[in-house]
């Protein structure tokens, strides 16, 4: 009874076992409702599951999967390098306007820039990569600057009293001291990249990818394949998120000590 009460109590932290049970129960309930409702236009879970099996047996699935993963990783690595470079430079006043401009680029629509990027790039691969980077970097820089702006003045004062110069303070407080948060930002932005990948892949279909699979299935109204692909994309996203979360705690063990859960 107490456990039941606890799951409806605000700010209550549940133990791992109860939380897992709750998660599984809610997922099963949602699937059950979905199955029993008949789905309407949306294929029911059993049909989606069957479609997942069909997708796995498609000869070009593995190629498409690796094309998407490779593009995401490539895009992420380049975006991280560019975003970190811009963010760290923003600490030097002369470069601050550049960082502020990049942040505002969040409001530029990608669709309007496709033509420009097509002219600037040499092939479909480069076009997809550049659009992915252009789509991620402003969000990445925005969050990174938020992390930097959130550093308390006292930390820099501590560095001063420990006789550290500006460069040492920058290294200790902003770069090394916030590496865990940079990793978390990267994890969050990986989700954005994964979300964008299917849209970007549709721009150059010759190189394949999960996005291409989705577009083709949509074209032939194969809704079960569409949902099957979505389930695979969703599951992979969750898997990557989990792996990155594990890495974060392994690389930065102190992060686990500062959270409620």
């Amino acid at each position, binding site marked *: 009874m107490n456990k039941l009460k606890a799951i409806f109590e605000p700010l209550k932290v549940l133990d791992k076992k109860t939380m897992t049970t709750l998660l599984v129960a809610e997922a099963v309930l949602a699937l059950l409702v979905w199955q029993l409702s008949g789905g309407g236009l949306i294929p029911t879970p059993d049909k989606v599951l069957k479609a997942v099996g069909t997708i796995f047996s498609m000869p070009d699935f593995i190629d498409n999967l690796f094309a998407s993963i490779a593009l995401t990783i490539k895009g992420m690595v380049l975006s991280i390098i560019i975003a970190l470079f811009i963010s760290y430079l923003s600490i030097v006043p002369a470069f601050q306007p550049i960082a502020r401009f990049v942040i505002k680029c969040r409001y530029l629509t990608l669709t309007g820039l496709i033509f420009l990027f097509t002219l600037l790039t040499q092939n479909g691969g480069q076009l997809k990569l550049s659009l992915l980077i252009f789509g991620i970097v402003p969000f990445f820089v925005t969050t990174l600057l938020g992390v930097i702006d959130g550093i*308390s003045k*006292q*930390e820099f*004062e*501590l560095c*001063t*009293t*420990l*006789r*550290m110069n500006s460069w040492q303070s920058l290294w*200790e*407080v902003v770069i*090394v*001291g916030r*590496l*865990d948060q940079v990793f978390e930002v990267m994890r969050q932005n990986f989700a954005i990249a994964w979300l964008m990948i299917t849209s970007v892949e549709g721009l150059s279909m010759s190189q394949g990818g999960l996005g291409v699979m989705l577009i083709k299935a949509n074209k032939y109204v194969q809704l079960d394949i569409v949902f099957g692909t979505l389930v695979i994309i969703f599951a992979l996203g969750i898997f990557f998120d989990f792996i990155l979360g594990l890495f974060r705690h392994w690389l*930065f*063990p*102190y992060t686990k*000590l*500062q959270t409620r859960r």
Partner: protein
Amino acid sequence: MNAYTKKQVLLSAEYVHLQYGEKKILRDVNFKIRDIHREGMEQGQVVALIGRSGIGKTQLFKIMAGLVQPTEGTVRIGEGQHAVKPGQVGIVPQNYILFNHRTIYRNLKIGLDNSGVTLTEAEKKRVIGDYAETFDLAEHLNKYPAQLSGGQRQRVSIIQQVLTGNKFILLDEPFSGLDILMVDKVIALLRKVSMLSEQNTLVIVSHDIENAAAVADTVWILGKEEGKEGATIKKEYDLCETGLAWKPDIRTDRRFLELIEEIKKQL
């Protein structure tokens, strides 16, 4: 027991003013902290800066540390009495800021790394180990700051400054939020730190009159004078002169209780 002499000036302020726009925060602050010598003892100085909340204690604290430039006047430091520069005075903030990504050992090591003293890694390890042993932190060296209690973090914060080689350490509200037993421990800790070196000078910024006065040899009252804008050091109590300094059981002394009452009236 109380034979002492006051020698050269270690830290002083001359006509320090601080103003933000039209608002005058500090006015005409003057003080001198002298090196106190006690016969047969290695003894530093402990000054308590007492004032009401929001009076400008933290601003004066930052001026003394060279972190804020006064609108007028100068704070001078050392035997040469040159203008204070950031990094010459250590600070221990109220919330005991440490580097959360470093273990306690590495937090202490960064102090030693910047001390200007050339030591091998083995020597650094030995020095840190000695301090950790003295201040009951030996078993916590491999932990992260988030794993320590407030009192333990405070000790790490103080030792970090001591290891940097700072002879002058300012402590912001060191008794804040502590229970009575912890307060006694902190007082013992501050005494221990002040006795590490003849020139060690602790300035305790606090609104806790009794505890600050119990550990100090000098008490400054920061407050506003009638009709004048901005706070200044209204009164200085020399507890060495009145025989109220360096007594572990000072709280039971009637004269000390009278002093506390007098200070309260000054605020």
